[in-house]
């Protein structure tokens, strides 16, 4: 079984910051907007290098989204930065009308998604954002798994013409994808080969899926792990090809099972190849305060939960 090495824990938001810094040097049309969370979003370096292209809007997210939409008129490529909660739920109508319906080339970059935001608790831990964003026509939805992939995705979305929601997180997690990777929007990455069960994971759950596959392997179960960094457009073919071989699937995400990756996968399977599916996701609930690791365990978002789901899926074949 192919294994992956953690080159050292790093936060995905720093991957975004590093990508933005590089974009700032590479593309003079890239502008960055922030709603009073420059440090949290790791946008400091861009701000320092390009003060004229950095726009501090204050605690006014609705205005930030509108300004970003307006800046595309004149050829700019705006990257907005704030927490996932304030990037989506708080500004849904602004994104819907001024960005998505208007077809504006705005990159909505959202940190601190999910329960791994930790101690701040449920007011800030959005678990509904993937659903909100994927329902908007024309919106691309990406949830990256580690530092390297988040950096690569940040660079890639600048080249994509159209609105994008890029979701990442707060805690330091395993960094295991290649440093020099090319990020292809909408293209799943197969991480391990297996015959017994397909595990499709996104965001922080990808590393957990790899850990689960390792443990399952020791029990004689062979799991095919696929990193779905792009939830929309979904790589239908990668999923269908894999389940044709394995006959069952687990979806894993740091999000409510309603509206998340799991439902997108279920739609594809229901239409083309109905397949037993187990969902690793939050169970229509809000989060709470705690450390990210504690919350992952309590809300069933860890390697153990994925192993359990894999066995349940196999049993249903």
């Amino acid at each position, binding site marked *: 079984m192919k294994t992956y090495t953690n080159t050292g824990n790093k936060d995905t938001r720093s991957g975004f910051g590093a990508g933005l810094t590089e974009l700032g040097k590479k593309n003079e049309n890239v502008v960055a907007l922030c709603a009073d969370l420059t440090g949290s979003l790791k946008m400091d370096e861009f701000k320092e290098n390009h003060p004229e292209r950095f726009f501090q809007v*204050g605690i006014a997210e609705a205005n930030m989204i509108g300004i970003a939409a*307006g800046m595309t*008129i004149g050829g700019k490529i705006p990257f907005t930065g704030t927490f996932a909660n304030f990037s989506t739920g708080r500004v849904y109508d602004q994104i819907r009308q*001024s960005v998505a*319906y208007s077809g*504006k080339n705005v990159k909505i970059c959202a940190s601190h998604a999910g329960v791994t935001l930790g101690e701040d608790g449920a007011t800030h831990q959005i678990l509904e954002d993937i659903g909100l964003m994927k329902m908007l026509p024309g919106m691309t939805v990406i949830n990256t798994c580690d530092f390297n992939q988040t950096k690569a995705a940040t660079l890639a979305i600048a080249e994509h013409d159209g609105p994008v929601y890029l979701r990442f997180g707060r805690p330091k997690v395993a960094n295991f994808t290649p440093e020099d990777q090319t990020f292809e929007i909408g293209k799943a990455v197969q991480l391990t080969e297996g015959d017994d069960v397909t595990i499709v994971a996104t965001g922080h759950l990808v590393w957990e899926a790899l850990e689960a596959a390792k443990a399952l392997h020791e029990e004689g179960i062979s799991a095919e792990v696929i990193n779905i960094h792009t939830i929309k457009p979904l790589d239908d073919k990668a999923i269908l090809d894999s389940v044709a071989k394995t006959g069952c699937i687990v979806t894993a995400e740091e999000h409510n099972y309603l509206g998340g990756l799991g439902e997108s996968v279920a739609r594809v399977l229901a239409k083309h190849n109905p397949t037993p599916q187990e969902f690793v996701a939050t169970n229509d609930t809000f989060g709470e305060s705690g450390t990210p690791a504690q919350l992952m365990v309590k809300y069933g978002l860890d390697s153990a939960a994925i192993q359990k789901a894999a066995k349940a899926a196999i049993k249903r074949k």
Partner: protein
Amino acid sequence: MPNIQQLEDLTTQVRRDILRMVHKVNSGHPGGSLGCAEFFVALYKEIMETKEGFDMDGISEDVFFLSNGHISPVYYSVLARSGYFPVDELNTFRLIDSRLQGHPTTHEGLPGVRIASGSLGQGMSVAIGAAEAKKLNNDDHIVYSLHGDGELQEGQNWEAVMYAAGNKVDNLIATIDVNGQQIDGSTDNVLPMGNLRAKFEAFGWTVVDIEEGNNVEAILKGMSEAKSLAGNGKPVCVLLKTVMGNGVDFMMHTHAWHGKAPNDKQLATGLAQNAETLGDY
């Protein structure tokens, strides 16, 4: 010097367009549209510097954003009669497969429109973004926007008002259509606006009043003054006092025609008060 008679003739024709458009589909918003007819004519024919044709980026030209998108009839009429698309297309307003959606949008590719609007309160932020992009592009043209007075009840406006002053967005001229009416009644009854001049000034804007907002000459004078005040470190707000439903006597001074179309008889009365000048579409 602009030919005032020509502008007034166009305004009359625009009023006819508005009435006929909303009558045909028995829906749409004639009241606010009629109230802003003179403003749109003055803006597109005299005030704004625009290029031939239309490109989304609007580089090296003035651009305009309509925030209160429900007054699309006046917008469409003046865009068509300014050459952005065929005047005949006004026939398709609100019909299936039309580029002239109930509320303006870029989605169907209608030339002249740069943002969707309709859900209120978003246009000032968008205008600020376009103004900031102009500054980055060293483009010294102006961004104009129009907002309803009732629309100022949406909080996002005040985020935008604060931002524009705090960041010296002085290539922005935001006009407020002060007609004192909204769907449920007068603004004073629904949610009093207070002193708009004092509010904008307190936020750090320069304010220009146009007391006769349905008089083309007064609009030209006020907007020229606003233009001369741009580039001085402050955003400019124009308080345009208008009469909702202007030019059609039974629609004036009431909120009743905010979003209601005239019937056949009412249309005939309205058209009789506005004789054809440039030819109906």
